[in-house]
């Protein structure tokens, strides 16, 4: 099987600056114009039957990619299995719904509050639970995801099972209007958020936090021996992931204009985790690809109705068997030197 990731990286490294810039601009232009692609005959194969194509680009595609990038920091970068990521999405969404309907704050003003609350809940959940490892953490986070949903069902402030309607759309910026009949506005703003997250993750990855996360993921005890404050960095990873989930929730509530508890089921946590694993844990481009495909595909094949989930599941199983590390796995450094130097020490053995 050809290694797409290495081929891509090789190609990129061989390009000079103007070539790279041109490529990035072209790619961005194509993505920015995606909402219109459904209208033309040459690209109409992208159109989703039954659901509105432009709406699908926003949710699930855009939101899933954004959330996958957030979860990737937690699962892919630091190796913490979070099965309740939907909780942060819900906290962001309910913050937008409650503040948007009860106060005069607009969505842009609510955004930092939603992210902050999600982040805070990440820290509060992380402080006691991130001392746990592996399976225990997965189970506690799974429980947290359910708790948030059940609180929303049983609380008057969150509208109980009926949820909250009439969440306002965001006011326009730079002449871009955000409304139910103008979904490309939402798509573009989510695109901006995705680019910001990618930029941030790439910067963090090559700096101290990124190296700390990498060490924690590979061996937490040894990381501690190297002087990595493991609990601190795990909480950072957890809460940055939470903030991104919260941001996705705010935009989602404002786009749907409505939130209800059944939008925030365990299902979403699993789907986002699938996006990360399917695309390639720890690799940003893999995760973007994974999120895009897993969000878009079920909508695209909606015409086969009930068989849809079966086909989707089958595709997942097959691809994970063929590419167990995901579509675009993280960089692997297994380049063995072919020319073995004469042994300085003889008689050593591999154990």
């Amino acid at each position, binding site marked *: 099987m050809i290694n797409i990731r290495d081929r891509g990286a090789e190609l990129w490294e061989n390009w000079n600056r103007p070539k790279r810039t041109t490529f990035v601009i072209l790619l961005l232009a194509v993505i920015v114009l995606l909402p219109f692609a459904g209208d033309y005959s040459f690209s109409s194969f992208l159109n989703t039957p039954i659901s509105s194509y432009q709406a699908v680009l926003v949710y699930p595609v855009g939101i899933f990619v954004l959330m996958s990038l957030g979860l990737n920091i937690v699962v892919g970068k630091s190796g913490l299995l979070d099965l309740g990521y939907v909780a942060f999405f819900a906290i962001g969404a309910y913050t937008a719904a409650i503040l948007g309907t009860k106060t005069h704050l607009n969505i842009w003003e609510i955004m930092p509050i939603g992210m902050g609350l999600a982040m805070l809940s990440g820290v509060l959940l992380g402080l006691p639970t991130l001392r746990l490892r592996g399976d225990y953490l997965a189970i506690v986070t799974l429980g947290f995801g359910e708790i948030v949903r059940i609180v929303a069902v049983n609380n008057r402030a969150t509208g109980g099972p009926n949820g909250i309607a009439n969440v306002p759309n965001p006011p326009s910026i730079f002449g871009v209007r955000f409304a139910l009949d103008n979904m490309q506005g939402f798509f573009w703003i989510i695109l901006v958020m995705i680019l910001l997250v990618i930029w941030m993750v790439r910067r963090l990855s090559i700096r*101290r936090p990124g*190296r*700390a996360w*990498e*060490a924690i993921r*590979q*061996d937490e*005890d*040894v990381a*501690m*021996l*190297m*002087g*990595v*404050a*493991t609990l601190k960095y795990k909480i950072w990873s957890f809460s940055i992931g939470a903030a991104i989930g919260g941001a996705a929730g705010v935009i989602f509530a404002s786009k749907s204009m409505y939130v209800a508890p059944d939008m925030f089921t365990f299902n979403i946590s699993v789907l986002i985790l699938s996006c990360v694993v399917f695309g390639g844990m720890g690799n940003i481009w893999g995760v973007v690809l994974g999120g895009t495909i897993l969000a878009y595909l079920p909508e695209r094949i909606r015409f086969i109705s009930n068989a849809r989930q079966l086909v989707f599941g089958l595709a997942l199983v097959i691809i994970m068997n063929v590419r167990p590390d995901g579509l675009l796995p993280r960089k*692997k*450094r*297994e*380049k*063995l*030197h072919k020319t073995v*130097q004469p042994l*300085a*020490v*003889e*008689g*050593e*053995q*591999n*154990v």
Partner: protein
Amino acid sequence: MRLEIKDLHVFYGKIEAIKGISITVNQGEIVTLIGANGAGKTTMLKTISGLRPVASGQILFDGKDISKVPAHERVGLGISQAPEGRGIFPGMTVLENLEIGKYFRKERKSEMVEDLEKVYSLFPRLKERATQAGGTLSGGEQQMLAIGRALMARPKVLLLDEPSMGLAPMMIANIFRIITEINNTGTTILLVEQNAQQALQRAHRAYVLETGHVVKEAKASDLLNDPAVRAAYLGTGAANH
């Protein structure tokens, strides 16, 4: 530098692994802890480096009790461990492994280059393998990497956990030669070993551990000739005496 452990007790759940051990490591020494499996050797090192909590007793480092200091801060004090089973980062390159050994020092470029050179001169193999993933190294090379990475922290005392484990005899001799070399440059070493023969030949003093207790403490050379120790740990007991 003086590391003094007083009446240390450590538990795994309800099982007491260390039952009141007191040991001292003085500046410039190689001190070795020998003993069979389950004697508590590795637990001793893990407790000194902070991976296991202290139930009671003291760990005095230069006179200060550090038993409540979190593990990640102890390396900054000058205690650095090469963990058991060559706990290197398999997915990082050799160079990245070495660099992270300096993590707590917040990157001083000149120091980094200087210390890398020192480690490379001790272990030329690591320089050849610098861009290779840690997980692809041979057992002996991984052990070199674990020791080299611990040295990157410029430790006052170096804790070595079974450096000979799973290595071929030639490699073991080589590793022990380098341990002496490191000690000659002024680094104090606390060495845990099952290979008592090699450890006692290299060390100045030794403690014999049995099921969580110190049963014997002596100069290493004396223990090498001690009939009871020879019988129990050196496999050359009754037949020769």
